[in-house]
């Protein structure tokens, strides 16, 4: 029973309960986006802050409207003309896509092994999957530098075993970025996948076995199709944050690893071009809106199906 039906008028306390988090988010989450949008339409200036026009709230609405006419789409045109940005966008999507696919290949056997393990093990295994998620992202990425670099542990091991006689160059390449993303986002894929595999009704597999179906075929015909919802949810959870990733391409990738998060960072901190980095942010957001909306719709459909 919702309160609105019994009490059409909210008490002061109930209003305050809504107002406090609402106002906080309006001021510190929504308003900043409008500012980003606005600055992306401004021009660079050698000043602090380094862009014109700046809005002066004190000068009132008419001044605001007048300033609107000063806004330009120049930054967006610039983004289409300089192919660095196009390449960054495309390469972010490609790198995130490839990494998501590898994460799926690595994560599926883990989730499957967890779901098929004895019931008594499962809470511990689940805890072990979640624990790295609590550990700092930066530290987990840093740990790979010592492993992947030319004189690093992986090369030492391979040289010692005799598989290679020249150290492999992995650090500062796209391969290192794939490894970093797969490693960092693996729990996001394993958890939803495990949830859908664990729910699987064992009697279906028993029935298949009784009817003489070999176990690999039973997996392909029963387990795999029923785990598709978990796979899709997991892939979205890896893909969406991976597109805007900054730390991994910056620390593990090379100078020719283009990712949009890194481009934005460089544009902002090194080139101090605030309007262009705002325009990059707006376009990155637009790029991500598509998979996010798809994901939301998908989740909703799944929930309705279950209900």
């Amino acid at each position, binding site marked *: *029973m*919702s309160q*609105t*039906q019994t009490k059409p008028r909210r008490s002061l*306390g*109930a209003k305050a*309960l*809504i107002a406090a*988090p*609402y106002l*906080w*988010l309006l001021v*510190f*989450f*929504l308003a900043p*986006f409008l*500012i*980003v949008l606005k*600055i992306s339409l401004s021009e660079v200036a050698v000043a602090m*802050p380094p862009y014109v026009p*700046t809005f002066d709230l004190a000068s009132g609405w008419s001044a605001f409207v007048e300033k609107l006419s000063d806004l330009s789409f120049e930054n967006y045109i610039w983004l289409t003309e300089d192919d660095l940005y196009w390449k960054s966008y495309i390469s972010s999507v490609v790198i995130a896509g490839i990494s998501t696919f590898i994460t799926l290949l*690595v994560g599926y*056997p883990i989730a499957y*092994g*967890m779901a098929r393990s*004895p019931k008594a093990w499962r809470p511990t295994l689940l*805890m*072990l*999957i979640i*624990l*790295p998620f*609590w*550990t700092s*992202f*930066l*530290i*987990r990425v*840093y*740990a*790979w*530098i*010592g*492993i992947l*670099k030319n004189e*690093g*542990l992986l090369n030492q091991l391979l040289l010692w075993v005799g598989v290679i006689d020249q150290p492999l160059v992995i650090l500062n390449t796209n391969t290192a970025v794939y490894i970093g993303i797969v*490693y960092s986002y*693996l729990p996001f894929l394993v958890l939803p996948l495990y949830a859908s595999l664990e729910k699987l009704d064992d009697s279906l*597999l028993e029935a298949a076995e009784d009817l003489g179906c070999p176990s690999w075929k039973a997996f392909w015909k029963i387990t795999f199709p029923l785990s598709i919802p978990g796979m899709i949810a997991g892939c979205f959870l890896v893909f*969406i*944050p991976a*597109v*805007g990733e900054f*730390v991994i391409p910056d*620390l593990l990738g090379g100078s020719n690893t283009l990712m949009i*998060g890194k481009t934005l960072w460089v544009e*902002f901190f090194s080139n101090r071009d605030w309007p262009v980095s705002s325009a990059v942010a707006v376009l990155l*957001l637009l790029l*991500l809106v598509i998979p*996010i909306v798809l994901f939301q719709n998908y989740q909703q459909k799944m929930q309705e199906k279950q209900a």
Partner: protein
Amino acid sequence: MRNGPSWFNVTSLVVGFSFLYLPIVLLVIFSFNESRLVTVWGGFSTKWYGELFHNKQLLDAGKVTLQVAFLSASIATVLGTMAALVLSRSGRFPGRTIFSGMIFAPLVMPEVILGLSMLLLFVAIDQSRGFWTIIIAHTTFCMCYVAVVVQSRLVGFDRSIEEAAEDLGCPPFKTFFLITLPGILPAVIAGWMLAFTLSLDDLVIASFTTGPGATTLPMKIYSQVRLGVTPEINAVCTILVALVTMGVIAASVTTKRRETQRQRDERAAIAQG
């Protein structure tokens, strides 16, 4: 295959978990390395930990980070719990869609965008940046995580006790503190811990919103990592990993114990009744 784990499943679990844990284990091992060369073993030593305690910059950064994490996690827990109550209890109100959108959006938003937009807000209102601006930024994205964690607990919470209290004339404020809060406390604590670690770990948003004099530990680690791998960083990272691991394990043990205690109490109450 169902009569116990098959060799394939055991192998994939062993390989999978080795992949997850080996890098961290190696990082910890090499923090005890005598040699300055991070990848060549030169004997066991704790000297890098000793040096940490003389590195004033690092200690200061650690202090700032803990203060920021504590304050922003605490504010975020209050605001996030309120937001969760609004989402699950307030029914319809004007602007509800925007409200829930603002709660869920930061969870999927790239950090670079959150950081950039926050900074531009602080510049626009001419707020000098530093300690408090990091706290505001961290509170904003952490409260959304807290809201989601607490809300999932509120959904499964039996409302009849709250309604009984209200019918008996208990003011809503008192009902919340006497009935709702004790019921959702594990989720509130989990939310606080999540917010604390998120703030502790954050590099990107803090880098955008910081100002002179407020350097956090991830920022310090990041600037050193760019110069190369050193055993001191391994030592700092080991301490952070140890703290977080102990925190998570302690929390899960307490939750489990509390749960068993509650079940025992319930059984005792039924037996007496």
